């Protein structure tokens, strides 16, 4: 079966084994509890860094573990497969959307202050773009930052922010200039800045172990030294990481679907009905075969897109396709998985019940299915 990506080498396989061992020992035993508590222990970030998994894909001079996106994605897949907690996985991986703008555009000083401690698992980072009034329409954000001397004074609100409740710093999109794309900048806003507060911890359909917050900024004074890249050039800074983020989402969907498939396969072999295991019924066997087939297709497109991206190709539209293909596949596979589990599939504590809920986020987060289709349509010049 296609349980690996096309780009994998012995090194990826070995890394998978290490990540699997870590997740099986240190995440899986708590997966259900952390989901119910809507939080995993903060110390896990440090542990994740210590064992060399958090820093994958970051340069060694920033304390990272080296490697590329492919290494990060296979490790993340094993964390999902063996750890069985999507919420924990996305919480631990939250830095992968917050840090890249600083790594790519930040000053040495900013990298030392923010990237190094986050890669070491000592600080939690978040990326805040979405607002109550602007989600898909990123250029429509209205959180204002007005410069006066050596500070920006920030007013506004952000919502649906992953790790926002616990983040030590939030890479925040603010409006420093005029309307739309050209007036946006990225500011790092630290937790203890007066005027910054977590207004609400949000309760969600899935992803429970990962906290999601609504944030408020009231006359929040942020030093100019926390501006990432150039003033008014924030939209481009946000865009830099879109392909990596969408491919990461596609890879997470592949991992979740793989787990739902594995759980279903073993359930179908064990569960007896009418005197035989469920796999004794052709309908169930074919359901499993269809799940395996769509999963293989989702993995193939995600893997090909990532290989091309790593080779330097512009894959903006293909990454949008990979995201849509993998997210839809994942939702469908998880739905089938619940069906195969019957009533048990609808019960909390059953892994596929959790996955079914976790899967629902993916066609929304990181750019909705509709926005992905707009990107594809634009590239195809319909």
């Amino acid at each position, binding site marked *: 079966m296609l349980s690996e990506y096309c780009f994998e080498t012995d*090194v990826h396989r*070995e890394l998978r084994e*290490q990540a699997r061992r870590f997740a099986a020992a240190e995440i899986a035993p708590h997966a259900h509890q952390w989901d119910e508590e809507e939080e995993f222990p903060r110390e896990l970030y440090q542990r994740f860094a210590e064992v060399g998994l958090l820093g994958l894909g970051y340069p060694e001079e920033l304390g990272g*573990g*080296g490697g590329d996106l492919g*290494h990060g994605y296979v490790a993340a897949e094993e964390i999902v497969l063996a750890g069985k907690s999507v919420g924990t996985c996305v919480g631990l991986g939250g830095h992968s959307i917050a840090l890249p703008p600083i790594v790519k555009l930040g000053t040495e000083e900013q990298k030392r202050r923010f990237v190094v401690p986050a890669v070491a698992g000592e600080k939690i980072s978040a990326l805040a773009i979405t607002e109550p009034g602007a989600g898909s329409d990123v250029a429509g954000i209205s959180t204002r930052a007005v410069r006066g001397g050596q500070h920006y004074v920030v007013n506004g609100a952000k919502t649906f922010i992953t790790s926002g409740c616990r983040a030590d710093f939030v890479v925040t999109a603010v409006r420093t200039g005029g309307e739309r794309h050209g007036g946006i900048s990225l500011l790092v806003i630290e937790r203890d800045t007066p005027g910054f507060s977590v207004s609400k911890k949000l309760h969600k359909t899935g992803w429970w172990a990962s906290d999601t917050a609504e944030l408020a900024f009231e006359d929040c004074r942020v030093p100019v030294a926390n501006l990432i890249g150039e003033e008014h050039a924030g939209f481009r800074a946000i865009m830099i990481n879109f392909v990596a983020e969408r491919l990461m989402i596609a890879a997470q969907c592949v991992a979740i679907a793989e787990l739902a498939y594995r759980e279903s396969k073993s359930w179908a072999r064990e569960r007896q009905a009418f005197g035989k295991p469920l796999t004794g019924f052709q309908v169930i066997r074919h359901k499993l075969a269809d799940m395996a087939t769509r999963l293989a297709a989702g993995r193939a497109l995600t893997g090909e897109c990532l290989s091309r991206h790593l080779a330097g190709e512009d894959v903006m539209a293909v990454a949008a396709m990979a995201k849509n293909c993998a997210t839809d596949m994942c939702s469908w596979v998880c739905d089938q998985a619940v069906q195969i589990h019957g009533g048990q599939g609808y019960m909390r504590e059953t892994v596929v019940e959790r996955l079914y809920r976790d899967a629902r986020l993916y066609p929304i987060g990181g750019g909705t299915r509709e926005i992905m289709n707009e990107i594809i349509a634009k590239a195809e010049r319909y």
Partner: protein
Amino acid sequence: MKVMVCLKQVPHQDARLDVAADGSWIQEDNIKFEINSYDTYALEEALRAKDAGEAEVVVVSIGPDRVTQALRTALGMGADRAVHVKDPEADASDSLGKAKILAAIAKQEEPDVIYCGLMADDGNFSAIPPMLAELAGMPSATGVISSEASDTSITVRRELEGGCREVVELPRPCLLAIQTGANQVRYASLKGIMQAKKKPVDVKTAADLGVGEQVGAGAAKVKINKIYIPPKSDQAELLEGSTDEIVTQLVGKIRELGVL
């Protein structure tokens, strides 16, 4: 100081096991393998000895091509070099034959300490560590849960029945068979995994080690006749009723069997 770690690669704990058609062993094609869990603790104990001082860690394994992966894992975790005995005759040996091969390596390497896992997850024999210690002329301790080296000796804690512990001091060189859970086994980082690709793996046959005549299926004193999955028995009886009724019935059954 030099330490030697004996590693066995066993079927992955998640692998689906089927009996081979000829009933001689399990079907090994298309299943994943991993390092025997006991051996990972042995490796960790050895790597801690290295962290504490100046030890060279040599990992040794007997098995077909696939064993390279187990050795690379160990090298990725921090071992310095590996010896791979790749020889179908070695694979066909019984525990004593394999112990002879390992003893031949120990003779060449002259380690101060040999670390083994207490047993293997697949065969559950626990035979090789004491055999190897005997053949190598070393004292040994089994069921070790911690070890501390001084200049000339090593002091270990052994796990006994009923939660008891025993402290034993062994002169070096010696062999320790490590219990699972003795320590927290480290993870290889990506950097470690990359570096492992450049570390030396010495491939040998039993003949290279001068024990070709003494090993193999022909020399084996223990032969596996048959591997099988025990048939499911229908002898279970479900007791029904309230808790009190079930307990009364259960006590009756135990009496019937003459246990009470």
